[in-house]
């Protein structure tokens, strides 16, 4: 929106909207609607405030518990938990493991799903319907039913307690939704573009590289965001295959934090929780529109 918008004649503008009449019933309904919106936002976000608040407590305050002067507004703020989570709990290594695995999974997914998405949308493959159904079904396959055989397989090749096999295993989270999403996306690109290039003597692969990929960047970007979120969030595979703390991913490492005798140091746990939520929260805030469009792309076809 810039100041260069040309003023439209008033009469035209009027015809766009029905005249607003303020009836009391309508005002009350509007007020109730906004009240409901506020409640929903509170339910969604207040728990995040609470963990941030807990993460900023000192160990002494955690031991004393919430109450008195230390209520919804904390009595004092302390950054010790954010320091301790890196010094005592050595959170940096699991954090780095998670970043490596999530980025690698995203990269593999984007390449593999783009290829398949294009082929399923544009190249007349026999059995397209069956292939798409299988891909969807694989996405619903119970993760906890796979871990036994995968554990035995990784064990036999000496790849247990290693983060790199996770990159392959996480594809079961990312490939189904990404392939469907990109297939739908490629279908929406007008085929005239390709036809023109093909008429000019370009090969299919050239068309894919020079014409389709540039136009498909938004779709690929959406697939990348969703893949990163899904890979970043895994817990089940990590807890089944990783055994030593140096090889843990961030979500797994957090479950080992803050236990000390009968006292649970929630400030330490929640400092780590805040840290791993930040990249995801930023992604959602920046790309809300794309994520919503991407999540709904594969749902009904």
């Amino acid at each position: 929106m810039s100041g260069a918008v040309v003023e439209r004649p008033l009469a035209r503008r009027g015809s766009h909207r029905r005249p607003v009449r303020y009836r009391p019933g309508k005002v009350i309904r509007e007020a109730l609607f906004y009240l409901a919106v506020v409640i929903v936002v509170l339910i969604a976000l207040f728990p995040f405030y609470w963990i941030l608040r807990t993460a900023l407590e000192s160990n002494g305050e955690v031991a004393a518990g919430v109450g008195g002067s230390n209520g919804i507004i904390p009595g004092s703020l302390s950054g010790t938990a954010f320091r301790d989570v890196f010094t005592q709990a050595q959170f940096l290594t699991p954090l780095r493991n998670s970043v490596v695995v999530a980025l690698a999974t995203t990269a593999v997914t984007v390449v593999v799903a783009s290829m398949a998405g294009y082929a399923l949308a544009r190249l007349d493959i026999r059995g397209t319907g069956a292939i798409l159904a299988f891909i969807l079904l694989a996405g619903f396959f119970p993760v906890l039913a796979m871990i036994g055989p995968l554990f035995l397989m990784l064990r036999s090749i000496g790849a247990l307690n290693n983060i790199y096999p996770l990159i392959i295993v996480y594809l079961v989270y990312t490939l189904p939704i990404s392939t469907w999403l990109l297939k739908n996306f490629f279908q929406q690109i007008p085929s005239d573009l390709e036809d023109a290039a093909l008429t000019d003597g370009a090969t299919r692969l050239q068309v894919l590289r020079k014409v389709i990929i540039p136009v498909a960047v938004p779709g690929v970007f959406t697939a990348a965001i969703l893949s990163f979120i899904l890979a970043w969030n895994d817990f089940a595979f990590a807890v089944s295959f990783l055994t030593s703390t140096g090889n843990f991913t961030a979500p797994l490492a957090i479950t080992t934090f803050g236990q000390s005798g009968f006292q649970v140091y929630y400030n330490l746990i929640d400092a780590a929780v805040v840290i791993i939520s930040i990249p995801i929260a930023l992604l959602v805030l920046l790309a809300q529109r794309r994520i919503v469009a991407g999540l709904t792309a594969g749902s009904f076809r």
Partner: protein
Amino acid sequence: MKGRAGGRISSGDRYLGYLLVAPVLVALVAITGYPLVYNIWNSLHFDNLSYGGLPHSFTGVKNYKAVLTNPVWIGALERTLVFTAVSICFDIVVALALALMLHRQFRGRGFLRAAVLVPWAVPTVVSAMLWKTMFDPRAGFVDYFLAAFHPAWASLSWLGASTFRSWVAIFVADSWKNIPFVAILLLAGLQVIPGDVYEAARVDGATWWQSFRRITLPLLKPALSTALIFRTLQALLVFDVIYIMTGGGPGNSTQTLSFLSYNTFIVNTDFGTGGAMSLLLVVLALAVSAIYVRAFRPVTT
């Protein structure tokens, strides 16, 4: 030539198509198909790493018999089914209300959508640890809040003390994380309902409730069926949140089928019994999907 988008399809293109689809299929077959077959094999054999030296002798359906008559497994099955039933009833209704809210045009809709998406996008370890903090008698907000109503509620313990209250905490954490996604699926369904249908109903003097019952619900059927299948499978396979919040306790009163599968495979390293449990889980998931697909099958003439 078929009437598909994408112009002329030569046989070379078709080979290219198979080549492009192959990586997705190979990856998904390796991650889901291979464990499935391996589980079938294991479930018919004795295979327990804890008894390393014993031969993997063929045992027929003995593992299945043992699982089906095991009170621990039957208990987990009952809990899983009850949890699933309660979750889908509650979540679908709340998600539908939320979807109607997200669909409405108003100032701040983008912010509301982003706020609602954050709980879905963060890892389960975040939602589970966050609610573990919230429900903690000392560090949590829930008891701090309840204390205002009854002094005895100031130090009510939720996790690990009472089976019922443990389930309440799990249910809250799980619904808080998963309702947003169901709402987004339903939002996608609402977006494809043409607005002039409502306009026509309004002209005919239909009330909000009438147009909801007669227009929204019937036209939302495909989206509802997608959301139901998705949410049901997710609840049937619940694992992360239980592992993190209660570890299956107190006793084994919050163990679900997926949790038991993890315990059997990874803790007990019993791949025969685990294989049988996994296959029963897969069969259950398939049966539920089949029931939904039948129930929502469009009426054909």
